[in-house]
């Protein structure tokens, strides 16, 4: 890393920078191929008879014409233009970039999991159903809520499931509520979900402690409110200590309380959403439970719910029969079924279940609790190290809580780059881009929205103290060099495969596919 810390404006380009980006569609030559089609082994029939001309494609799609070695070189080459968690520190707030054990990939690739068809008869998929049943049980225990649906495909999909379950709950009670409360610190998926579920968003203010403003909540909580969606710890990395009162107010008007599980990594085995009064929790198996993020998916977003909303869970559910075997309950044939129905095909992202389950069995109950403790310890240590390095002058903690003996955070913290921008002329974006030259993925930037020039840092439990030290030092170094020459940060990065990109032009005149000749 020592040569990286001195990397700045350079004469000439790096080898990666000299490569002009060419897509697979710009490579190859007519007639090249990687695929060998199996021989036609059935009697030849006139293909035009089988598929009449009016249904036929006239010209083949212009897919690449490349050999297998070309494909491998191309995509391995592209992989080298990506930064990834296995290469370095990735403190992206709210995303829980913890280590992805390779055991999970090996287990998920076993043919009994990977080549299992979703319509295999339950009697002949007992291993898979048992795995799902066990995972449901573990998630239920972690949430402190009795029922689980594994169906949702991602956190946002879990949110949709949860709000639709809420809708069904109120409709069944004959109530036509139309508002959902979300704090102004909420993830963008919360208000977007509310709209998709046919509700109106009502925003709640944040108090000086970084929690929900109880007065605002009391004023807005009425019988028109269907639900309050909350993250706890919230997106400021702070645990809302008023959670019991919040739950009382929300339940007092008959609404449900929804837990956005994006920050569950702070509290596993330490505090449970169900015990806090939440009715619905979504999990991000790709955050807390090590499903690799894949460069933007796949994810998986199971939900756990309380008794009173359980009848409305999406189907299918994994159930255990009296003889101890497992089955899928599709909610059909039950006259009393009140399920909201399906949210997708089949049973959910099983491949993600295998990985999350492997993780839970590797760590066990105590190990999961240790993981959360270590995540919170690492975050507080990094916060302290940044303070020691005199970073706070330019990057203060956004909501330092007074009266607790010094500012603490849960598994992540949010700094404000406001002073840095005013005093050094360096924006949070500049700091983020300069961190790239130091070999780090930057923290989440400009979120939550209510913090000026926000920088949201989540180190996770799987990082070493040495890595946290190095990140704190790099941040301090960047601020020191910015005090001398702000342009260094303003023009960063210098060492990446491409330098700052023109996002405005990309959006103004969108080019979203390769232009092809015949």
């Amino acid at each position, binding site marked *: 890393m020592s040569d990286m810390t001195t990397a700045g404006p350079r004469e000439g380009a790096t080898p990666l920078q000299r490569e002009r980006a060419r897509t697979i569609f710009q490579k190859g030559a007519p007639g090249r*191929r*990687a695929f060998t089609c*199996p021989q036609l082994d059935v009697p030849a029939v006139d293909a035009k008879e089988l*598929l009449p001309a*009016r249904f036929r*494609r006239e010209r083949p*799609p*212009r*897919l690449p014409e490349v050999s297998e070695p070309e*494909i491998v070189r191309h995509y*391995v080459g592209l*992989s080298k233009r990506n930064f990834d968690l296995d290469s370095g520190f990735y403190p992206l707030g709210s995303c829980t*970039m913890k*280590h992805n054990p390779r*055991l999970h990939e090996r287990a998920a690739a*076993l*043919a*009994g999991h*990977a*080549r299992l068809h979703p319509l295999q008869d339950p009697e002949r998929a007992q291993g898979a159903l*048992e*795995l799902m049943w066990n995972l449901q049980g573990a998630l239920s225990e972690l949430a402190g809520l009795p029922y689980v649906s594994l169906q949702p*495909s*991602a956190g946002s999909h879990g949110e*949709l499931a949860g709000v*639709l379950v809420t809708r069904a709950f109120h409709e069944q009670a004959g109530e036509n509520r139309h508002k959902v409360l979300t704090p102004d610190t909420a993830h*963008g998926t919360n*208000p977007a*979900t509310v*709209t*998709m579920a*046919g509700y109106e968003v009502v925003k709640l203010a944040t108090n000086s402690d970084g929690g929900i403003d109880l007065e605002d909540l009391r004023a807005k909580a009425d019988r028109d409110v269907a639900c309050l969606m909350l993250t706890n710890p919230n997106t400021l990395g702070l645990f809302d200590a008023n959670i019991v009162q919040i739950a009382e107010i929300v339940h007092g008007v008959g609404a449900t309380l929804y837990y956005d599980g994006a920050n569950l990594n702070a509290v596993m*085995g330490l*505090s449970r959403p169900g015990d806090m009064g939440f009715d619905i929790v979504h999990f991000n198996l790709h955050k807390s439970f090590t499903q690799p*993020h*894949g*460069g*933007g*998916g*796949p994810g998986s977003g199971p939900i756990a719910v309380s008794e009173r909303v359980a009848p409305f869970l999406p189907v299918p559910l994994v159930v255990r029969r009296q003889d101890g075997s497992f089955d899928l309950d599709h909610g059909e044939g039950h006259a009393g079924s009140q399920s909201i129905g399906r*949210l997708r*095909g*089949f*049973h*959910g*992202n099983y491949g993600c279940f295998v990985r999350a*389950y492997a993780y839970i069995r590797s760590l066990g*109950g105590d190990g999961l609790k240790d993981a959360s*403790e270590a995540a919170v310890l690492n975050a507080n240590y990094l916060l302290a190290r940044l303070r020691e390095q005199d970073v706070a002058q330019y990057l203060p903690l956004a909501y330092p809580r007074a009266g*607790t003996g010094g500012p*603490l955070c849960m598994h992540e913290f949010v700094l404000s780059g406001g002073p840095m921008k005013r005093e050094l002329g360096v924006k949070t974006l500049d700091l983020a881009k300069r961190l*790239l030259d130091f070999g780090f*993925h930057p923290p989440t930037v400009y979120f939550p929205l209510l913090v000026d020039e926000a920088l949201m840092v989540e180190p996770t*439990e799987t990082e070493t103290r040495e890595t946290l030290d190095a990140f704190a030092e790099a941040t301090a170094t960047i601020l020191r060099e910015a005090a001398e020459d702000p342009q260094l940060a303003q023009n960063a990065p210098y060492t*990446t495969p*491409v330098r700052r990109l*023109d*996002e405005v032009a*990309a959006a103004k005149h969108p080019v*979203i596919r390769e232009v092809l000749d015949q």
Partner: protein
Amino acid sequence: MSRYTAITPADLDAMLAAIGVASSQELFDRQIPEAVRLRRALELPDGMPEQDVYEHLRELAARNVSAEDELSFLGAGMYDHYVPALIDMLMERSEFLTPYTPYQPEISQGGLQVMFEYQTAISELTALPVANASVYEGPSAVAAAAYLAKLHNGGRRIVASAGLHPHTLQTLRTNAHGFGMEVVEVGLRDGVTDADAWAAALSADAGADVQAPVSAAIFAQPNFYGAVEDAAALAAAAKKEADPVVIAQVDPITLGILRPPGECGVDVAVGEGQSLGNRLDFGGPSFGLFAAREEYLRRMPGRIAGETVDVDGRRGFVLTLQTREQHIRREKATSNICTSQALNALAGVVYLSWLGRRGIVELGELLLARTDYARRTLAALPGVRAAHTQPVIREFALQLDADVAAVRTRCAREGVNPGADLHALSGRDEDRGGLLVAITERRSRADIDRLAQVLGAAVAAERERGSSGETGVPGEAAVTV
């Protein structure tokens, strides 16, 4: 300390000193109220060494009968196509497996370019000019398209063909309830969407119970029963009756030979991408493809990669048109989707490159020929007939004169899974006795002949039993001889 954390006792002391607390417990005691602390151990099994976890997962896998363990003709939405080895290798690369969404484009050019290439491939396949970087999977992609239609024209009626997969119809209904839309289902005639009923459902006076203005018209190509629909006629009829967004749920692997949606008057094409280089994985993760005409670009859900240049003029890629998305637009976003299916879409575009311009046609012709052979061979068996006479490419429905569940059980004993039980999936009365058979390039003529032998014997045995009045048949009683 677990094997994935690294805090030694010495580290702990130094860290606590730096923070200024006496113990890590203090971090929680000072932040979480006592009333909501969990003061007991989680009731979960103890942790295990890696090798023991592997053995447990292997043992669970061994209790599943996978497509490796039997001769399987299951399809109905997910298919046992061959996944080339190079896809496994590329998907396991750290640089593709472990990053997050490419929020920092300067260090994510690989992933962003993959998205751009994927969008190009989907646009080519569908003959529609714009495609996003993928959504979750097939049925929810249809629901997402219906939401696009609502945003586009404000209508509330979704006219949906009964040829859509039952999971799609169910997903559509669940979502439509939230969107404030209603679903009007149009029945089939000889295996394809009934053209008269389709036109009637789309017309302004569709009946007293259907008042809402039409928003979307949706059909599947090929449909759930394997039949090739007259997509151009359906789209034209829809446009004649009303001005809906015409949505087709397509199967991308058929688009080497099948007239693409963009040439059939379709506005939005969505579909399940699993056929393209993705594993079965008991139903997921896979990806949903989403392509459209240009005018819908700014209402599309999900991530979109776009081309641009850096400060030195180098070609590069970024996430673009983000003002559609939840993290910017919040309650006004075109969708709540955040995570797409980047890794699965990578497999998709690598697969399409591997098949190539000629391969996708050759594969389509092979599937067409083998599927036709299979349908003719099986429909010639006593007690078995084709459920419809429409062209089929990779899948077809049969009608058995025997109880399907019992027949499937008999076949399973012979190591053959003859396909999906149609009635169990759709719940439709007319699907009783229905079997849906899928043929991939992994099923040779010899495999099909073996299916014919085993299925023929099973149907014969069940008919025998039905006529002799024996009881004890698993599942429902045998029907109509």
